């Protein structure tokens, strides 16, 4: 194998394909698919012979190439290398589009790399002597992000059942959002009607979540619902007086 290729320089199958196209000085809009497929497969063989782990994506692209090659050999399609057919669609079209898109982002990545990075090329002021706190300002929370929060939760429940782990889904969290809203409204107004709670949302999912939230709150016995007759409005009240925040 004569290719002077270092495999860790490829970011994936598209990257390898772009490399082969450049190496052969091929027009990307008119890829000689047989030649490129052959070189692509040879490179994969060579990678395998070096005991390199081949990501599955490399094989997916290999089969795509073979598929395109076979379609180009069908009599009804334009002959290889002849570019787009007048009526039919060039079997290479999707791949070319994907390659061009990938190439554009690859260049964008190089652009980013070429910018003056903070803490690599340019630096901000290194230190500043600590000042005594002003005391009056609201306390701010140091940089914690979602990642830290999720990690913390994962740490906590790692000892618990896997089943419990799976219970957390965005549906439950959406219901919790609605629970908080309902509690907020009850706090402000003292009571709220079922209708009022359901009216806010236009989309069906929100109505379902509101309903689930009401059921959950009733299950937790945090609210009580009263109806003033068989078809009268349902009114919702807090079940217990809550204590003020911070108590």
């Amino acid at each position, binding site marked *: 194998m004569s290719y002077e290729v270092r495999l860790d*320089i490829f*970011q*994936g*199958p*598209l*990257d390898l394909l772009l490399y082969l196209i450049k190496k052969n000085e091929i027009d990307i*809009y008119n890829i000689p698919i047989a030649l490129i497929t052959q070189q692509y497969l040879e490179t994969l063989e060579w990678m395998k012979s070096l005991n390199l782990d081949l*990501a599955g*994506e490399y094989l997916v*692209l290999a089969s795509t190439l073979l598929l395109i090659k076979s379609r180009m050999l069908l009599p009804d399609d334009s002959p290889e290398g002849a570019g*787009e057919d007048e009526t039919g669609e060039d079997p290479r*079209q999707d791949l*070319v*589009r*994907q390659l*061009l*898109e*990938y*190439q*554009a*982002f*690859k*260049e*964008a*990545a*190089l*652009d*980013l*790399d070429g*910018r*003056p*990075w*903070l*803490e*690599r*090329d*340019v*630096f*901000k*002021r290194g230190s*500043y002597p600590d000042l005594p706190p002003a005391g009056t300002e609201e306390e701010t929370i140091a*940089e914690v*992000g*979602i*990642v830290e929060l999720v990690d913390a939760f994962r740490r906590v429940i790692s000892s618990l059942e896997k089943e419990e782990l799976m219970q957390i889904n*965005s549906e439950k969290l959406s219901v919790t959002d609605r629970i908080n809203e309902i509690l907020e409204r009850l706090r402000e107004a003292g009571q709220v009607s079922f209708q009022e709670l359901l009216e806010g949302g236009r989309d069906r999912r929100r109505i379902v979540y509101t309903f689930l939230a009401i059921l959950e709150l009733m299950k937790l016995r945090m609210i009580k619902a009263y109806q003033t007759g068989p078809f009268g409005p349902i009114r919702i009240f807090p079940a217990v007086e809550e204590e003020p925040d911070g108590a």
Partner: protein
Amino acid sequence: MEHDKALVEALLFAAETPISLDRLREILDMPKEAVQAAVLDLQREYQERRGGFTLEEVAGGFQFRTLPEYSASIRKMKGRGPSSLTPAALETLAVVAYRQPIVKADIDRVRGVDAGGTLKGLVEKKLVRIVGRKDVPGKPILYGTTRRFLEIFDLQDLAELPTLREFGELAE
């Protein structure tokens, strides 16, 4: 130096992150025009002076930063090699930056590989963050870039990213 200008300079110097004109105005209780005049005046002064650092406009604010030509000596002083992202991480970052908000499946498709590992690394480095969920079945997570991304890559805002090379057309 005039008092207001010196005061603005002191704040710009002491701030940990780029500081916006609005924030300066709020702290100093000065008219916006006066704050702006002071900042632009400082910016011009440092530019003309050609010292070790200048006042740069970045991520919607202003920040003193050293000039790139001194990076080697500063890195030597700090005793660390150039911090860098792998080419794979940079590609993922570029896709997120230009296509945000974007779901992971679309990043995978563009890059032709599973971008999970690089994406997680970028979230941990606080260059990429979760911005919401796409309203399609499964509600997949949408990703976007952070303010820190702008700070690190010396961008005022996303509009300052160079235009992506056209790839939509298959015309010769």
